[in-house]
């Protein structure tokens, strides 16, 4: 394997990792606040893919992108409203089952509406431009993804650390009841969290599918799980952690595929998860929590 091949793989890995990182942030934020795995997040990401396909059929790309993002955000907020909010005081297992139910529903709904046959993802002309660096060639999306990811994460960190809404999010994730007593509207804060998470998932979806070129009803389920793993590895609740985890998983997946172990690339993610849960259950950036008796 020569240098340019390695560089090529590295670029692909970073690009995939960037998309994963954006989705992983959604998981980590929701988990940080609601202490639940939003099993439907991967399917929201899949639906965003379909939204893009249909809006591109009508609008030019610069209109389609905001339409897609708006649709994704709306979907996420509706799901939270209908499926999670009524269960706020219910046992954690019920909420998790509800999330699995939503995931199941979205997959079946997508199969019903769009059929199980993979649909071609429209190409956004400027993202598909090919660049040539010596013997390495890459489409623009490969370069845009990591850069955009970093920019969005920095912006997000600013929001969380320096705005009132961000402060509310931090407070609710530390202690929901106390935050409520302090006059923070928990429901509103959770809605904001879903808006941000879905917005990033929408961006991630555009970048991911531009690279993959097809969408089908189950194309969100495995990437979704992988991104949750990324969030766990990075330390659940930590946004930089989710980014690092996303890149780690994206790069290792690309490496495994390029070495010819593509059947194991999915399994590897879970092996990584189990190794982390065993030796560093709080992840790379996670805090330790003790249970009170």
């Amino acid at each position, binding site marked *: 394997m020569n240098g340019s091949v390695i560089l090529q793989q590295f670029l692909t890995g970073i690009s995939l990792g960037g998309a994963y990182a954006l989705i992983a942030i959604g998981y980590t934020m929701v988990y940080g606040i609601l*202490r639940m*795995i939003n099993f439907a997040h991967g399917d929201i990401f899949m639906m965003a893919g379909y939204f893009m396909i249909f809006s591109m059929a009508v609008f030019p790309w610069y209109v389609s992108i905001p339409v897609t993002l708006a649709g994704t955000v709306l979907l996420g907020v509706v799901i939270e409203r209908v499926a999670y909010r009524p269960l706020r005081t219910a046992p954690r297992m019920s909420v998790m089952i509800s999330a699995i139910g939503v995931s*199941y529903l979205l997959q*079946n709904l997508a199969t019903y509406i769009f059929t199980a046959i993979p649909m071609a993802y429209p190409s956004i002309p400027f993202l598909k431009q090919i660049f040539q660096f010596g013997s390495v060639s890459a489409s623009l999306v490969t370069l845009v993804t990591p850069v955009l990811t970093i920019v969005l994460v920095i912006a997000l960190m600013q929001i969380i650390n320096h705005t009132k809404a961000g402060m509310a999010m931090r407070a609710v994730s530390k202690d929901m009841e106390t935050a409520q007593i302090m006059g923070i509207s928990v429901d509103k804060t959770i809605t904001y969290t879903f808006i941000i998470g879905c917005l990033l998932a929408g961006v991630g979806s555009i970048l991911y599918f531009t690279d993959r070129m097809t969408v089908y009803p189950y194309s969100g389920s*495995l990437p979704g799980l992988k991104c949750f793993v990324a969030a766990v590895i990075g330390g659940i609740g930590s946004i930089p952690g989710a980014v690092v985890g996303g890149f780690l998983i994206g790069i290792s997946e690309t490496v495994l595929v390029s070495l010819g172990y593509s*059947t*194991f690339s999915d399994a590897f*993610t*879970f092996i990584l998860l189990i190794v982390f849960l065993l030796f560093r259950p709080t992840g790379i950036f996670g805090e330790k929590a003790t249970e009170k008796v």
Partner: protein
Amino acid sequence: MKKDIKKRNTILTIILIGIIFAYMLILQLNSASHSYAISIIERSAIYAVVAVAMNMLTGFTGLFSLGQAGFMAIGAYVTAILIIPVESRPTVYYVNGIAPWLANVSLPWWLAMLLGGLIAAGFAALIGFPVLRLKSDYLAIATLGFAEIIRAVIAAPGLNQITNGSYGLNTIPGYHSIFTPVIVSIICIALMVMLLRSSYGRAFTAIREDEVAAEAMGINLFKTKELAFIISSFFTGIAGGLLAIYMRSIDAKTFQVTLTYTILLIVVLGGLGSVTGSVIGAFLVMGGQEWLRFFDEPLTIGGVSIPLFRAGFRMVIFSILLMVVVLFWRKGLMGGREFSWQGLINLFRRIPQLFRKKKSGEGAKNE
């Protein structure tokens, strides 16, 4: 008085069992014309085993494990590999050939199934060490991950000569009689019920109720959870074997996460912590999936075709049902209780009362 009720219940139970077996006998004797009903009953019985096994973990021990599809895959593959007739193996493994040491190894179906269950249990024992220390949602995602790993291993090219990789296995000899899968399922469920009713089963429930208190009462958390996990996986493996024989051809895609979700739906619908609930849930879900098939067919009323009815609509209805149960009817059908004749009788007695109450309620409104 108490004895009378007991006697009545026994008689009712015997009558019920008699009716069920008579019905199955009728189906069996006319199996050609009833193949559809037979197939639904067989499938429901098999899913009932997995559902009870999952309930043992989720509903009784409070361990939210999502690895069912993986353990079923192990059971199914072990059973299938060992019972495919030796003479048809070259055709099954026509691409890669079968490993020489395996080529002539063949077992009777029940022994193969038992072995499948034991291997699944063995895997569970190994997996349990790292995984059972985790808290609820981490446990769910880790077991789900393990199921995916198992699936990846089965489909791996390195195991082509054993599992036939992505080509899957076929020409698995099927059931000759409806009684075979039904009786095996009944035995499996009975064994699980017996365990759940023993002191070990009570220890499971204690862990579900309060881990800290259970530990303070001298219950070893890890050992007890491991026991529940191993036993549940054993029966899940057996159910996988049953499913392989039922389906007659399997591949790694049969055992995707959706399979686990379907089982979860059965358990939730029937009620977490209720064995009879899971059994009833299995028959409702499997029967319902068949019955709802008309949703997938184009429907025309008076020459106007209703646009909603086409392929996939059934599953949408189905997942909406699941959501309705989860959101509005969280306890499921049985809500942690078991079926009892007294409960059924009380239910029938309550029906007229319900109507009366409704009427009086309306009366109040009118005033």
